[in-house]
């Protein structure tokens, strides 16, 4: 796969759109980005990772021999979180947007990946409010969303990215990992190269299935034990069921026999022809008469109860007016009683006034003008009061107490509400029953006149016999019903226990056992395969890494290559068959780069290699040697993102010019060495009072620019 264009929009320090054209008419593999700190080298490197895999992780750190899980860098956020989006775009644009377009040519045709993210301003500025889209075109196929992600995974699995995106700053950590014992990290890498993660996941799935099946087997074994118990119970129920069924058969036999006897009796009765019919009617009438007579007894007894107080209905005809009279008298007597009390009180007051007369009127408190006359008037009033009292006490009205006694006596004679209706209803019911009995008795009398004594006797005996048989038949039917019910219950119990017993050692556990056995074998096979692949991969990586190492190292006379032991622990092999126990840091870095490249080669994936800060831990000779190795006349593109201190632009261009397909410098405005408008190198840097470089100006075309801005411009380095 060969990268052709990279279009950056508002990512890192790149404000607006920046197009990087990687096309050349040469097949050289060397590409270089030179820049001072902060200009965006790593942002370009990260832009491609984000475009391909939708996320960029912080640099790998190692501690105590194991990788510390890197964090995913946010699209937007605070400065310390290292957001990917350009901060000016995020702060200033109405709808901040970041996008990266990657165009390449691969074995499957043209590839274009467009990943875009817009900030949704309605809510808080968080990744949650971002709208991300992905479009992938591969040959004639176009996919979006998750399908597009899957398409990328097919031609560039994310698990292999660490072999193509190499971070020079992380080399030391990577290096320390592969030198130590029992490192999971490199094993993971080897498995990734072998594309084993999916097989490993499959293996884990199988182990999980095996666990479930074993659990099933245990469950079934438990059920089997229960089933054995149920089988014993089923046997007991079966015996009980058979006993009950025999009882049913016996009862049916009895019924059948009694029915036969009854048929014989009925046939005998039939022989008496019409007489039998009459006798039947007689019997029926007798039964009806018996029942009706019982009803008559009940209604007669009810009638007695209901009419027990009926005499009150009669006596009340005369007592009621008297009752009302006494009620009225009580009202009157109460009035008279009050009048007596009032009159007596008045008399007492007059007597007192007469006895104590001292010339002052007791009514008005004034002095009486004529005492003698006043005394005479009081005397008259006393006489009047005495007469009234005498009249009231004359006894023409009965005392209240006496009246109450009389009312109480009359109340005991008062009928209850509804007494008459109840008595009449009971009487009517009795009359109906009485009439029915009389009617039936009359009919029976007429029938009796028709029936001869002999026929009555014979049919009576047959009737008794039939009644007896019918009664027996009824009893037997009840018995049959009960034993059938019992037999059905026993059958249900048997079937229930029998169904439970059916789970014992059936085909289910047998199948499970077979499956379990197969899965165990399968797991073993896969484990062996992985182990075998790993061994082969170890050998292949060792060979590939050794080849790289021997090409890059500057001590080919001392070293023989790189050795990876069974635990993927790496050492530098000496010509004498021993290992270099204290290699220089540069040699170690070369070893690491060699292993990474060895892994990349074994992976079989053909894609450009991106190396950020490639010379960080290499000495000058190794830096040169590394470029010598990776920058070739043809093959996979090898892009370095170098700090100006690592690789000087002029020197690199001079030393590797023929191998460099294209190179760029990343500038802020203050870095300009010529006018971007007219290309003139006659430019002036204006400073403020503090000596800060604040403005640039072209002396040739008078173009001016703001040197305080930190927006990066990508400029191709002309050879």
């Amino acid at each position, binding site marked *: 796969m060969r990268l052709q264009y990279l279009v950056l929009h508002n990512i890192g320090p790149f404000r607006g759109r920046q197009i990087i054209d990687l096309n050349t008419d040469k097949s050289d593999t060397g590409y270089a980005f030179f820049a001072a700190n902060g200009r965006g080298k790593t942002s370009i490197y990260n832009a491609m990772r984000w475009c391909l895999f939708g996320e960029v992780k912080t640099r790998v750190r190692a501690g105590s021999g194991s990788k510390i899980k890197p964090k995913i860098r946010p699209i937007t956020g605070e400065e310390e979180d290292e957001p990917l989006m350009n901060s000016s775009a995020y702060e200033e644009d109405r709808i901040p947007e970041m996008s990266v377009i990657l165009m390449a040519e691969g074995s499957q045709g043209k590839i274009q990946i467009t990943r875009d993210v817009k900030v949704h301003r309605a809510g808080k500025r968080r990744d949650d409010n971002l709208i991300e889209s992905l479009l992938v075109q591969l040959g004639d196929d176009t996919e979006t969303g998750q399908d597009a992600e899957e398409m990328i995974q097919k031609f560039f699995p994310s698990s292999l990215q660490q072999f193509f995106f190499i971070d020079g700053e992380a080399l030391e950590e990577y290096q320390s990992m592969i030198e130590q014992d029992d490192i999971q990290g490199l094993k993971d890498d080897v498995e990734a190269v072998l594309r084993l993660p999916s097989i490993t996941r499959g293996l884990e799935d199988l182990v999980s299935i095996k666990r479930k099946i074993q659990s099933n087997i245990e469950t079934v074994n438990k059920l089997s034990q229960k089933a054995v118990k149920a089988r014993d119970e089923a046997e007991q129920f079966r015996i009980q069921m058979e006993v009950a069924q025999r009882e049913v058969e016996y009862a049916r036999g009895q019924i059948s026999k009694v029915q036969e006897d009854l048929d014989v009796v009925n046939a005998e009765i039939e022989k008496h022809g019409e007489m039998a019919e009459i006798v039947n009617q007689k019997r029926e009438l007798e039964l009806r008469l018996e029942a009706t007579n019982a009803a008559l007894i009940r209604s007669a007894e009810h009638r*007695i109860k209901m009419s027990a107080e009926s005499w009150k209905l009669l*006596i009340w005809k005369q007592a009621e007016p008297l009752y009302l009279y006494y009620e009225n008298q009580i009202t009157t007597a109460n009035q008279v009683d009050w009048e007596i009390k009032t009159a007596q009180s008045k008399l007492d007051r007059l007597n007192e006034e007469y006895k104590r007369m001292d010339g002052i009127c007791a009514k008005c408190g004034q002095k009486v003008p004529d005492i003698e006359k006043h005394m005479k008037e009081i005397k008259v009033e006393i006489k009047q009061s005495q007469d009234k009292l005498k009249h009231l006490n004359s006894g023409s009205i009965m005392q209240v107490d006496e009246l109450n006694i009389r009312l109480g006596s009359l109340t005991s004679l008062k009928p209850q509400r509804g007494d008459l209706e109840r008595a009449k209803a009971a009487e009517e019911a009795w009359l109906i029953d009485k009439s029915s009995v009389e009617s039936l008795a009359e009919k029976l009398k007429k029938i009796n006149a028709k029936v001869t004594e002999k026929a009555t006797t014979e049919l009576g005996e047959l009737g008794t016999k039939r009644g007896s048989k019918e009664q027996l038949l009824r009893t037997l039917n009840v018995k049959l019903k009960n034993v059938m019910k019992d037999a059905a219950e026993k059958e249900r119990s048997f079937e229930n226990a029998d169904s439970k017993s059916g789970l014992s050692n059936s085909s289910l556990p047998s199948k499970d056992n077979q499956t379990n056995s197969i899965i165990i074998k399968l797991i073993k096979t896969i484990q062996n395969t992985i182990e075998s692949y790993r061994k082969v991969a170890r050998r292949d990586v060792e060979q590939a890494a050794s080849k790289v190492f021997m090409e890059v190292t500057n001590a080919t006379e001392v070293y023989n290559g790189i050795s990876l032991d069974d635990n993927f622990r790496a050492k530098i092999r000496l010509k004498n068959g021993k290992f270099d126990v204290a290699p220089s840091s540069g040699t170690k870095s070369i070893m690491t780069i060699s292993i990474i490249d060895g892994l990349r080669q074994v992976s079989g994936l053909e894609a450009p290699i991106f190396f950020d800060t490639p010379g960080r831990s290499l000495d000058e000779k190794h830096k040169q040697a590394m470029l010598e190795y990776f920058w070739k006349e043809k093959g996979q593109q090898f892009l370095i993102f170098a700090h100006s201190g690592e690789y000087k632009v002029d020197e690199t261009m001079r030393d590797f010019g023929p191998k460099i397909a294209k190179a760029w410098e990343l500038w802020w405005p203050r870095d300009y060495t010529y006018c971007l408008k007219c290309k003139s190198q006659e430019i002036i840097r204006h400073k403020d009072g503090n000596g800060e470089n604040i403005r640039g100006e072209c002396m040739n075309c008078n173009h001016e620019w703001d040197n305080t801005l930190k927006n990066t411009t990508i400029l191709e380095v002309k050879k």
Partner: protein
Amino acid sequence: MFENNEKIKSGSVGVSANVKQFFSGLVYQSDNPEVDAPFESIVEAFRFAFALGHSLKITKKPTGKNSTANIAPRSFVVEHYSVILEADIDEEFNSLGALISAYAEAGAELMMKTQTDGKSILSLLD
């Protein structure tokens, strides 16, 4: 109306022998439920007859042989009816017992006639 201080004699109750026999026939027997015998005892039949006679204000002196066949005094307390009867006490029926007996005798005669007419005893409630 009588004076407060006047004491009414209680006397005893009784009916003529044929009336008492009639009353006996009005006592319910479970083996003859079809018979018009709506009372539980002779006293109840007597009480009904007295109430009937009193309601119609008809009296009759018990006549004939054994004319004063007693009605159990413990089951029929004449004083319970003194309030409604005091106004009717006169020289002919000068005790409560005598007056009640006269009402009952007359009532019983009417009950006999009712049955003779083919009607039931309780039809007299109408």
